[in-house]
């Protein structure tokens, strides 16, 4: 305790207390906002009762923006023909129900169970078809051609999501999200339905087996080691440049200031 009392009035003590506070807040926040794993059960065949339950859930949670018959309003698009895959993608990533009306919705904790999402998806699918939720077989990466997946990913996906799926900027403040948390099903659904600004990669242009190859590449890059040291989020030269510029250059400036700083003169400080 005497050790602590001797040091608590030092200038550095304030910074240490601030740092400690930030760490504690971060840990507590992390502990409370952990989201559960995303359900991976494949969707059962829809029955009329599922569709009815889905309709009830839709009316309660979605109709205020999308309209009572999912016909769309001035605030949100029509969902007729959007398909079960679009509903499952938007809801299983927590993007829907949206926090606010805007061009983009961020991934956030899921508030519905997988079963409820399937029921709403069945209801929306019953209105006008659209792409279905892929089953486990369709998104399996077993035996997939990762090399072809890399080629397709770098041609069609990497310009927005980054070469390792770390995300990137789009126009007018929008951004392409990182793919680090996406499940294979969600990646498949996103390609099939083109959520938000993302273009559609339907089965006619990217075949189901090519989709599996792309998924295999995305999943594989997550476990690639970093032989160069720190990955810096794998967002490429921008991060590295920022770290060097702010971290490295800032450090060098501080060092240069310290080396060249003239020391206080005791004679002047005494007279003050």
């Amino acid at each position, binding site marked *: 305790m005497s050790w602590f009392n001797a040091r608590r009035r030092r200038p550095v003590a304030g910074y240490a207390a601030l740092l400690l506070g930030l760490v504690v807040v971060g840990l507590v926040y992390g502990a409370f906002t952990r989201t559960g794993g995303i359900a991976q059960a494949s969707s059962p065949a829809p029955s009329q009762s599922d569709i009815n339950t889905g309709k009830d859930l839709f009316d309660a949670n979605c109709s205020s923006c999308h309209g009572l018959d999912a016909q769309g309003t001035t605030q949100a698009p029509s969902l007729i023909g959007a398909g079960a895959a679009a509903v499952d993608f938007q809801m299983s990533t927590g993007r829907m129900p949206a926090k606010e009306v805007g061009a983009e919705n961020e991934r956030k904790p899921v508030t519905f169970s997988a079963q409820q999402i399937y029921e709403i998806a069945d209801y929306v699918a019953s209105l006008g078809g659209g792409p279905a939720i892929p089953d486990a077989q369709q998104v399996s990466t077993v035996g997939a051609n990762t090399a072809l997946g890399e080629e397709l990913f770098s041609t069609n996906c990497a310009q927005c999501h980054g070469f390792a799926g770390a995300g990137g900027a*789009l126009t007018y403040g929008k951004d392409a999200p990182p793919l680090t948390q996406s499940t294979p099903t969600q990646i498949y659904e996103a390609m099939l339905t083109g959520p938000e600004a993302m*273009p559609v990669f*339907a089965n006619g*242009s990217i*075949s189901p087996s090519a989709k599996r190859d792309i998924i295999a590449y995305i999943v594989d890059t997550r476990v690639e080691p970093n032989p160069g040291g720190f990955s810096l989020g794998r967002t490429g030269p921008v991060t590295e440049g920022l770290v060097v510029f702010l971290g490295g250059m800032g450090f060098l400036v501080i060092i240069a200031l310290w080396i060249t*700083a*003239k*020391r206080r003169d005791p004679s002047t400080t005494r007279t003050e």
Partner: protein
Amino acid sequence: MSDMEETGGHAGPAAPYRVIGTPPPSPRLLGPTVVDEDGEVGEVAEAEGSAPVDHVLGLPPDDPRMIAHGKRAEKVVAACFTLAFIAGCGFIAAYIGLGVHTVDKTLRSNLALGTSLAVTLLALGLGMLIWVRHLMPDVEVVEERHELRSEAVDREAFKETFVRGAEYSQVVKRPLVRRTLLLGTLPLVAAPVVLLRDMGPLPGTYLRHTVWSPGRRLLVYGTNTPITPAEFSAPGSMITIVPEGYSDDPEALIKAGVILIKFRPGELDVPTRTQGSTLIGTMNWTVDNIVAYSKICTHIGCPVALYEQTTHHILCPCHQSTFDAATGATVIFGPAARPLPQLPLTTDAQGYLVAKSDFTQPVGPSFWERG
């Protein structure tokens, strides 16, 4: 270390201006530098009528506090240098001991080598800095620059040697030798000029054409499969396309890359554009609201494929040139000077998408003769 810094020294004897963030110069001169008449820098002399005063604490060097301060700084410097030695040995040990034949081993080796070398160099630098700041006298030393012109005697001697050398070599006396020597070096002088030939030949019409030709099928890049308008019917679709028959020719593919975009009915409106008498963009070159644009940015040639289906923007990631795909890839932002060239599309007898012709204007960035 901080307690050493808190006790200051004095500003140098000649401090006409202040560096921002530093304390004001001291009116007190503690050991002025003496410059002798012959330009030699003199020793730091004692101030008149006072004992030599130290630079760090403002105390005489035999003061017990001064001696303690010096000993402490000496120990810190020695500790830094010892750390540098240990880390340097660690570097050698890591180089010998850690293999690099797998990715994981390379990772460990890089980390060990980088860390040990960084610690060595940092400890050496830190030790030297503390040495300078806490042990050496803090005085500003002025050293005058010497005269650049050589002494007259040396100049005379050189002249003599040169004239004698010319005489001995008989270079003046024997013009045949002199002239053939000059002749012999001439090709070497001309050689660099001749080597400039390798910058040619001029590209001719190479930059004006791609390998697209009438009836050539559009292949999806990667899987190399042809595509029909029916397969590409989902509105908002985008895909990268290459010409059929050039999968082994990367140079041809780089120039001929195309992005294919499908619009909802009524959304696509390509204006009719001409350059001189050449048609460079028209709605007639689209098939079922499918349009094809060159994938090479007209600014400096980066691949443009950040397509947003909601806004129909095509964004170039290099310099943020933004093209509006719905209105013929018009530039709406950024440094690009021209819309992306449009590839004329049609379908063949089997229903596959094919090119109606090559691009009718050069793709990619501007060049001198482009016009």
